[in-house]
């Protein structure tokens, strides 16, 4: 239900922002691309709209704040929140032909609080007033007859809520929630939940930020936050480097020698479609859950990708470049050094970017399965203790680091192989 509302708001912002921004922008920008009349179908004329990107991210945070009642947003933007505080409803009991009405006072409190309740007073007939407390998002059966003069076992029965007569299974809306009569005739009070997400499922952004600051200073499970992320990164870099050190020469050999090609092709082609995640159990059996096992796993994840990239780099060399180099007097070794290696660098960089991405995904998955340190272990353990804020911050940090790795690789690529795609 509230999922549909979220979707509706999201689509609404998307459409509204589109019309507003394009109206403003079409008046201001005047460059070559804006003069193109054919843009639909011309992929080169499609550039990410910067405003759309910013609004897109803000919208996600806006929705997150709205539906968690974030204190970062003014409260008029909040989706209707859950009821909190004191409310009451009346019940009418009938026993032995007589009927009496009493009031149930309900105190709805945040989940982590546990209020002390006053003794109920009052109630002039055989039904006596009650006071109960219930946590937000939860519900509670009202022990209405506990202090009544005639209890349920003596024949008393709830027949009306707030004057509205009820049978088992009926629900009556009352201030701050609803009362449902259970099959056994006991009223069950459920406070109004509103449209917001329960913090257990989705904590507010500021909770995640606070938790991040707290983790950054205190650490998690005996290791600092940087320690966890650093261990994951270290495993990725170590596994990737080993994979590249073995995989690149292997790929070159496969691209240059019939024997190597024949020998390793079946292995590489077989291992290529095996997802590294499928190797986790085997690696754990063979090497245990320690660092060695993880680095072997990441080594295997990077190895095939790098070997295939290097092989593609060799086979991608324009034969007339090789011929030209031979005609200019180059030896085999010089061809390797001055033609094949530089010509394959763009492919190798592309492979390295893919391999780093795969390694980063694989390390998190491996840590989810078994680890004492690492980003994956952090979110796994946090989820067991329902620390959703840590799970969220873990996911966000994993995403940011993965993105950062890719950006760094792209920058290195731009700097080191400026000739990419210009041959």
């Amino acid at each position, binding site marked *: 239900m509230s999922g549909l509302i979220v979707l509706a708001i999201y689509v609404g912002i998307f459409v509204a922002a589109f019309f507003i921004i394009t109206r403003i922008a079409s008046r201001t920008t005047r460059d070559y691309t804006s003069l193109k009349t054919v843009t639909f179908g011309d992929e080169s004329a499609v550039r990410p709209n910067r405003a759309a990107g910013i609004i897109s991210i803000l919208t996600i945070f806006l929705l997150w704040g709205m539906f968690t009642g974030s204190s970062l947003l003014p409260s008029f933007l909040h989706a209707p929140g859950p009821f909190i505080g004191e409310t009451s409803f009346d019940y009418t009991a009938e026993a032995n032909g007589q009927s009496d009405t009493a009031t149930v006072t309900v105190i709805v409190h945040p989940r982590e609080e546990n209020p002390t309740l006053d003794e109920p007073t009052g109630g002039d007939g055989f039904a006596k007033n009650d006071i109960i407390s219930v946590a937000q998002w939860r519900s509670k059966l009202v022990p209405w007859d506990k202090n009544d003069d005639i209890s349920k076992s003596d024949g008393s029965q709830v027949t009306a809520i707030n004057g509205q007569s009820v049978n088992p299974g009926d629900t009556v809306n009352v201030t701050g929630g609803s009362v449902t009569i259970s099959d056994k005739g006991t009223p069950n009070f459920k406070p109004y939940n509103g449209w917001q997400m329960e913090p257990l499922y989705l904590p507010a952004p500021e909770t995640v930020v606070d938790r991040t600051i707290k983790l950054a200073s205190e650490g998690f499970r005996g290791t600092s936050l940087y320690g966890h992320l650093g261990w994951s990164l270290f495993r990725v870099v170590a596994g990737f480097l080993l994979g590249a050190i073995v995989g690149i020469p292997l790929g070159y050999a496969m691209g240059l020698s019939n024997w190597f090609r024949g020998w390793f092709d079946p292995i590489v082609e077989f291992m290529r479609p095996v997802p590294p995640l499928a190797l986790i159990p085997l690696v754990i059996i063979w090497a245990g859950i320690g660092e060695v096992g993880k680095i072997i796993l990441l080594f295997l994840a990077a190895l095939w990708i790098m070997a295939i990239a290097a092989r593609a780099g060799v086979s991608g060399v324009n034969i007339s*470049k090789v011929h*030209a*180099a031979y005609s200019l*007097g*180059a030896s085999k070794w010089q061809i390797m050094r001055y033609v094949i290696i530089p010509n394959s660098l763009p492919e190798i960089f592309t492979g390295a970017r893919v391999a780093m991405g795969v390694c980063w995904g694989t390390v998190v998955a491996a840590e989810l399965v078994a680890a004492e340190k690492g980003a994956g272990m952090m979110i796994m353990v946090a989820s067991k203790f329902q620390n959703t804020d840590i799970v969220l911050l873990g996911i966000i940090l994993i995403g940011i680091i993965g993105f950062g790795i890719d950006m760094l690789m792209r920058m290195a690529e731009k700097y080191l192989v*400026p000739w990419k795609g210009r041959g």
Partner: protein
Amino acid sequence: MSELSIDNISMRFDLPNGGVVQALKNVSIDLKSGELLSILGPSGCGKTTLLNIVAGFLAPTGGVMTLNGHQIKGPDAERGMVFQQGALFEWMSVRENVGFGPSMKKMPKAEKKQTVDHLLNVVGLGDFKEKAVYELSGGMQQRVALARCLANDPDVILMDEPLGALDALTREKMQSLVLKLWKETGKTIILITHSVEEALLLGERLIVMAPRPGRIHKEYNLPFAELGVDADLREVKKHPDFGPKREEILSMIWDMEEEIMGRTEESA
């Protein structure tokens, strides 16, 4: 003494489907030092195959080639090659490309710099030494390729449609440049082209090849290259013999093309 001798070269390709292509049959050419030979022929008559054999990239199935008395067995710096396009090293600057051959033979730095600077000035790229090759236009890239080949000081220069990818104007300028370089350096040059005019202008000798099997059909000795060294090429084209020769060769090639088309239609 004839420098380059191509003696009775044959080349057959065995196709994977069991078929056989006789790309060249009994081709013999003798080239004296400093001669400029252009080769013309319909598409598929084996021109590239012949040049690749002379360059040493392919071993012929029959015949021998010798250069200055020794047999050609593989690629070597004595035979330079200029390709149609895409053979420059885009990871090197213009200067490094031209200096590639000298670097391979470990020429001293100062000498190499002098050679490279001189050749880049000759081809008119003195101001583009530090540019990346992919920043140059197609015509400039071919000038780099020429300079790179010359920097190695080969005995023979082999060119496979070196100007084929250029526009008409650039092409004409480059034709003058080729003639100028030929005269200045005195190199033996074999040049393959699709253009009859280019073959006439850039060939002291002109060989027309015929297809299936690839063979020498007719050979000419021409005055135009010698004339074009000093004169404007457009003037050379006004020479009274130029037009008739062009028409003669054009209709010769046209007939061959028609024969091929007819044959393929029959077999189809």
